């Protein structure tokens, strides 16, 4: 009997423990809490160290920006109150708004901003380009700082107000002085929410609370610009590894909002009267195929053109998105619906011509050796895309070896310039927000050859054209330059766009006024508590 008595003892001990703690249950009822499912697992908290979108989204809660992009794509001041440019266009003077405070209570100073700009300028692609044209950034007084350029470039505000990673978020000087290659330790910003460090469970839950001392602008919110008025007290962002369970949790009301419900699972909530589906980003994403220009057969332009003629965007879109209301074929390198949208040279990108592709392959002297296609099998969007790619490559007569790996391994292997036999690769499919590729300067393939993004395409004339674009401020001339850049890229088959799709955000009926944006913002939105 000894044995069973012990068990009973244990069980009653648990019972007592339960009764005691039940009495002290903490009351959060008077607070308005939004429980939401983020776009992914937040692993890194430093938005300058990583370009991961999940970190960018987190950063918009905690930190604020000097300028911000509004819903029309225009750049509006955010932390900046006023600014002026000298007649030669070289000296920019910025003055900060009144009442800006860090979460630890200290006032935001021009010194803080200068340090933040420097750290961002050391890591971000557009930031690095801006720094190339910059002679100095200096604080003038507590609230004013000065940027002195060596050439009058036209993209200063575009850089400060960019919405894609890395966004130049303003941090306190002591934090911004962290080595750009190391992560910051302290999560203190001047944004509308505070990061609650002791409630963070990495890999599971991130908690933010309203920053009471935040002073919003007077303008209505518009994308990342305008007044960031917060109507809720607390955001609990819960990452769930199982997409089906996450959707079920939204359906049953265990969470209020799902930032990126997978399109193929939307039928689970589409008939549910308590759940609203809304497009969250008017531009959406571009899916694209990255080609390694170093390894045969795709070191040969004709073979790359064969790939171009051999792909059909609708194959990809129908498989990874499904619902035709949520995707479109788009031949524009910088995205459809952006100011850099161009249709120059798009025919081969949009047309499927299997015979032509086969002829081109023959011309390129393809010897039947297997094409290494990397498949990020843990990624719910890119894994199906890789399967479609395998099928379309086989269709034009290529031998394909699909190498499955997790996304993290792919991010390592894609950096390899080795030949196929030594761990190298030929193609993979990935995606980007349109906001992140919406002009020649911030596009993944803005640089050339060795300096280029993975795949290392070489088109000698492109860098000069991009430089001209950056220096140009006349929009007609810019459009002509974009046409030329795009045409060159398509002739050379730098990479292949595979279609544009718009994800949605899903939320319970208690939630209203969600700002449509590629990064979900928790200001502006309301939650009714009845």
């Amino acid at each position, binding site marked *: 009997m000894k044995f069973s008595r012990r068990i009973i003892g244990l069980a009653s001990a648990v019972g007592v423990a339960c009764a005691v703690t039940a009495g002290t249950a903490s009351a959060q009822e008077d607070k308005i809490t939004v429980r939401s499912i983020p776009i992914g697992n937040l692993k890194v908290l430093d938005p300058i160290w990583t370009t991961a979108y999940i970190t960018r989204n987190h950063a918009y809660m905690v930190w604020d920006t000097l300028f911000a992009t509004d819903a029309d794509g225009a750049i509006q001041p955010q932390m900046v109150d006023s600014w002026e440019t000298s007649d030669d266009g070289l000296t920019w003077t910025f003055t900060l708004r009144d009442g800006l405070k860090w979460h630890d209570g200290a006032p935001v100073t021009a010194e803080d901003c200068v340090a933040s700009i420097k750290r961002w300028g050391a890591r971000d692609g557009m930031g690095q380009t801006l720094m190339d044209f910059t002679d100095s950034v200096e604080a003038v007084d507590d609230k004013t700082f000065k940027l002195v350029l060596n050439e009058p470039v036209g993209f200063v505000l575009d850089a400060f107000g960019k919405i894609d990673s890395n966004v130049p978020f303003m941090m306190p000087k002591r934090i911004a002085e962290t080595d750009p290659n190391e992560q910051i330790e302290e999560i203190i910003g001047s944004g509308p929410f505070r990061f609650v460090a002791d409630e963070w469970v990495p890999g599971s839950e991130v908690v933010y609370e309203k920053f009471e001392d935040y002073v919003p602008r007077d303008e209505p919110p518009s994308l990342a610009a305008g007044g960031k008025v917060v109507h809720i007290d607390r955001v609990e962002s819960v990452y769930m590894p*199982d*997409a*089906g369970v996450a*959707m*079920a949790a939204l359906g049953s009301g265990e969470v209020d909002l799902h930032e990126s419900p*997978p399109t*193929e*699972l939307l*039928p*689970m909530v589409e008939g549910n009267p308590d759940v609203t589906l809304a497009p969250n980003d008017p531009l959406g994403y571009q899916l694209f195929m990255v080609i390694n220009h170093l390894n045969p057969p795709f070191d040969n332009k004709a073979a790359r053109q064969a790939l171009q003629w051999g792909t059909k965007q609708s*194959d990809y879109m*129908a*498989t990874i998105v*499904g619902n035709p209301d949520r995707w479109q074929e788009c031949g524009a390198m910088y995205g459809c619906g952006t100011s850099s949208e161009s249709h120059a040279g798009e025919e081969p990108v949009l047309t499927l011509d299997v015979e032509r592709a086969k002829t081109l392959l023959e011309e390129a002297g393809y010897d039947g050796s297997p094409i290494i296609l990397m*498949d990020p*099998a*843990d990624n*719910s969007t890119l*894994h*199906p895309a890789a*399967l*479609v790619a*395998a*099928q379309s490559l086989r269709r034009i007569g290529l031998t394909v070896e*699909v*190498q*499955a*790996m*997790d996304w993290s391994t792919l991010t390592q292997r894609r950096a390899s310039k080795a030949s196929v036999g030594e761990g190298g690769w030929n193609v993979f499919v990935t995606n980007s927000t349109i906001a992140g590729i919406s002009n020649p300067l911030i596009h993944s393939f803005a640089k050339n050859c060795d300096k280029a993004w993975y795949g290392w395409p070489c088109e000698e004339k492109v860098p000069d054209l991009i430089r001209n674009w950056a220096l140009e401020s006349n929009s007609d001339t810019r459009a002509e330059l974009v046409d030329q850049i795009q045409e060159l890229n398509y002739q050379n088959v730098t990479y292949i766009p595979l279609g544009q799709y718009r994800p949605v955000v899903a939320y319970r009926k208690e939630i209203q006024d969600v700002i449509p944006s590629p990064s979900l913002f928790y200001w502006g939105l309301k939650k009714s508590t009845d």
Partner: protein
Amino acid sequence: MAVHEIVEDDAAPRQGQSRRGIWRQLRRHTTVVVGAAILSLIVLLTLIGPWLAVHDPLTIDPLNRMAAPSAQHIFGTDAFGRDLFSRTIHGGRISLTVGLVVGVAASVIGLGLGLISGYSRIADAILMRVMDGLMSIPTILLAIALMAVTRASVYTVIFAITIVELPRVVRLVRSVVLTIREQAFIEAATISGTRFWKVLIRHILPNTVAPMTVQATYICAAAILIESLLSFLGAGTPPEIPSWGNIMAEGRSYFQLAPWIILIPGTVLAVTVLAINLMGDGLRDMLDPRLANQV
């Protein structure tokens, strides 16, 4: 998954069965027959399956996603419109191969290591510490960690599961060897000058056959389950290969929209594991009547 752990303590060394006896036993032990029958049916299906299945297991059909079971797709289709029947049949080959190869490999390697361990004190001290170390890490975690080292392939899955299952076989064989070594007839054999390997072949090996066979069936069943768990966690067979685990892993998100993607392969897997376990139980009762009344 852990049934086989029961065996090692109870497995007593004994002399081999006579052939006539086995057939008489077979009739008496219906579990072996039932288990074997179900298993044969599944094996047969996976072998002739490719001729039964009209669809290719890999071809994607975006217009026919998550179709419910129908005359055209008797198991329905998955989230990419691939035919689930063809995939399940194809997956059976992978999963059964993993089970079989792990069962055999773990037994053979385990036998070797167990014998070494039973005979050499130094080797025993080292080997047993290593085995204790391996056993102290939860099975699934050790297997995923091993999978993380190697590039995902069917071979590495087999390798990882074999390593994880190995300690139990080694301990089993070692205990048999140690028991027998103490027994008088071996002492007698050694004294009479019979060489080591003769003792091995005449006395040790026959005594390990029975418990090892039982153990191997349990390992086979465990391997099929572990493969499915590894694939489910994203650390198993490469995803483009439709093992049962992968089919279910890909179907996990859709359990509410298309429950058949996970339930059908899941049930087939469970029936297979059940059949193998039944065979194991039956074999143990048959080969070791002393235990027949017990478990």
